[in-house]
């Protein structure tokens, strides 16, 4: 019996030679414990040395290998061939980002947005190392823990219709991270983050489609973070309205 095989159709684009992106089809061995990344590595090693894509950990934690797989944003190291076999698999670079080459996208925009939300502890008062760690109960940790799980894989940006339409939108992962620090008992930087998070390009741009949370491989639920930020911003607004001279 011949070894079972599977067809993988990959969107190729080499800016130095190609006018437009175009699909190229490869035939790879089918193994039920292989993921799409294994198939890409097989192609790279045995068929076509010019195929380019990002990867490293092969265990769904480094966030390098996000791609569109049959139209859905997925980590290629966590998308099993067995879920597609015997049908052809179509692999494309992540939606909503410019293609740098083949499956490699330009992600500068995300990196800038991540930075813009000040994703670090802004303490009320600097704490000296000698003072030791803060106390933080498991319950306090649990209020923000899920929002710390983001691996920056950008699947949520590829799924977000609003980011596709309005590139200025800060977007799910960055807003979820802002929310993560806002909720942390060690942090006092919410007001500084609100300049971006509560702006028109911040949470108010989100139309709550919820696609981001659907595709998140780490169950971060950025849509919930955005909704909670909206509610908190609305409360800020009413407080300011009712008590314009008071401290927020």
């Amino acid at each position: 019996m011949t070894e079972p095989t599977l067809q993988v159709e990959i969107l190729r684009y080499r800016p130095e030679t190609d006018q437009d992106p175009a699909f190229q089809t490869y035939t790879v061995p089918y193994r039920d414990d292989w993921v799409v990344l294994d198939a890409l590595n097989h192609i790279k090693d045995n068929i076509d040395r010019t195929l380019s894509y990002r990867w490293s950990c092969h265990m769904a934690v480094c966030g390098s290998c996000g791609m569109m797989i049959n139209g859905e944003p997925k980590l290629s190291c966590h998308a099993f061939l067995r879920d597609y076999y015997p049908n052809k698999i179509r692999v494309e670079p992540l939606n909503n980002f410019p293609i740098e080459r083949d499956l490699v996208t330009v992600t500068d925009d995300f990196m800038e947005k991540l930075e813009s939300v000040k994703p670090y502890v802004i303490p009320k008062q600097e704490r000296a190392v000698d003072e030791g760690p803060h106390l933080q109960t498991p319950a306090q940790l649990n209020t923000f823990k899920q929002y710390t799980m983001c691996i920056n894989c950008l699947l949520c940006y590829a799924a977000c219709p609003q980011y596709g339409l309005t590139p200025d939108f800060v977007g799910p992962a960055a807003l979820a991270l802002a929310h993560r620090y806002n909720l942390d008992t060690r942090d006092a930087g919410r007001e500084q983050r609100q300049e971006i998070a509560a702006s028109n390009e911040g949470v108010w741009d989100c139309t709550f489609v919820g696609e981001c949370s659907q595709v998140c491989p780490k169950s971060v639920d950025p849509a919930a973070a955005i909704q909670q930020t909206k509610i908190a911003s609305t409360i800020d607004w009413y407080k300011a309205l009712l008590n314009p001279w008071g401290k927020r």
Partner: protein
Amino acid sequence: MDVIETDVVIVGAGGAGLRAAIAVAETDPSLNVALTSKVYPMRSHTVAAEGGAAAVIKDNDSLENHFNDTVTGGDWLCDQDAVDLFINEAPKELTRMEHWGCPWSREPGGHVAVRPFGGMKVERTWYAADKTGFHMLHTLFQTSLKYPSIKRFDEYYATDLLVEDGRCQGIAAIELRSGQMRAFAAKAVIIATGGAGRIFPFTTNGGINTGDGAVMAYRAGVPLKDMEFVQYHPTGLPGTGILITEGARGEGGVLINNEGYRYLQDYGLGPPDPWPRKKAMELGPRDRLSQAFWHEERAGKTVATPHGQAVHLDLRHLGEKKINERLPMVRELAHSYMGVDPVFEPIPVRPVVHYMMGGIHTDIDAATPLAGLFAAGECACVSINGANRLGSNSLTEILVFGGRAGRGAVEHVRSGGKDVDRSAVEVQAGEAQKRITALFQKPDGTETVVGLRKEMNEIMESGAGIYRSKESLEETCKTIGDLRRRYADVRLEDKSNVFNTDLVQVLELGSMLDAAHVLAHSALNREESRGSHQRLDKTERDDDSYLKHTLAHYAGEDDPRLEYLDVKITKSPPGERVYGGAAS
């Protein structure tokens, strides 16, 4: 040639590189830092560390305990002045991480929680569930965004150190997006590029762990220290090599052979208590556990899997609640990649290459013998890890020595010395560019990256693995030597500029072959068994001849030149490594 002028250039933006960058920015905000990496910082392999980071913080523990566990675990090859400094700075560094927002797991009252790890007398591993490396890396990366003096150069592949007149004054690196070579001119360079596990076929290491930075320093004349010491982690998934954290055993997981028997009791690690006894059984040191597997396999007591022999890691008795709370990633990984739910079934595991104890020779200030060059993290060898690293010391090490490297670099820049010789930088970077151009221009070679890599992987596992012998190492040295020669004829098939991963893999293979070459020769020359270096023909530790560090010097096409340096013993004379019931 574009020359980017800065004060400190850092190669590698994982835990050690980021910590170094922050240290520079905090020590002197007026100094510019160029933080370069071949990947985006959050892709660095620190991200995959699971179990935790060691530092003494609890009343039932002491610095002396941490010192002794580290030195004993390292089979007395650790420099004890370095270990002393390390254990003292460890609690401060982890506390700083806490202040920066690392989501450490907590006790009910809100104090940071600790768990036991292998080879520890008292539990002292801080953890963030079983994603500690991930949380530390993201905390460091996000914190680094605070400092305007840190400028990132993401996806730059460093090819060469620029050395003039006995001092390091920058690097040459390829910007992957454009394929253009850039020179970075700086008075100080810090290398923090991680390990080289990819020279072996089964490894917990990611695809990026190819030893580039260490080999870059080696080729520039800086010795590599103790490269023969390779840690096999006892519990990786067969096939993929995906890591199942030692934390799983710290929480009470047990290892059983094909008879359902806790075999570690036959290797001096008993008694087999039903609870996790410190320094015994499953909480013995990594080298001993991996070696026990090797014997079980030869005795026919292992379990066959589609990806080779394995033993079983049984977590079932911990129950679903504890597994979900403490080991969620273990459950997810086992389920996704092995089709096994550890709540109901044992996980097949086997030893896989995990960590290089050896690396760039540095002193306790993370300085190398080359003026202006510093190194920290897995690519460096201080040495605090000796012949076998104690689990959960490496995440702490990247902070302690990353920080020291950053502060050392600031001091070096401030202490004056000659200005960077700009014309030498340009000339040398031009030469680096020419070497890359030559790869593009040469007629198609006859050797492939894939073919050479496969042969290297095979001989390293069979000849320089968990157990070695004179014979197997001689064969390994010969094969790697041949592969290095054949590498001169390697074919670059992709001749384009933009994000050329064929080119990156060609260069990475060159690094791996040099690292493998040093490893094999250092192992052949060390005629004793110590820690992770086990020789079937020399089964005893030999302190008279080998209480020494190996220093390997680059000799071009020839074999490395080896010399030895005495281990610094300050207060713990070499003794017997005692584990099992006698140790607790």
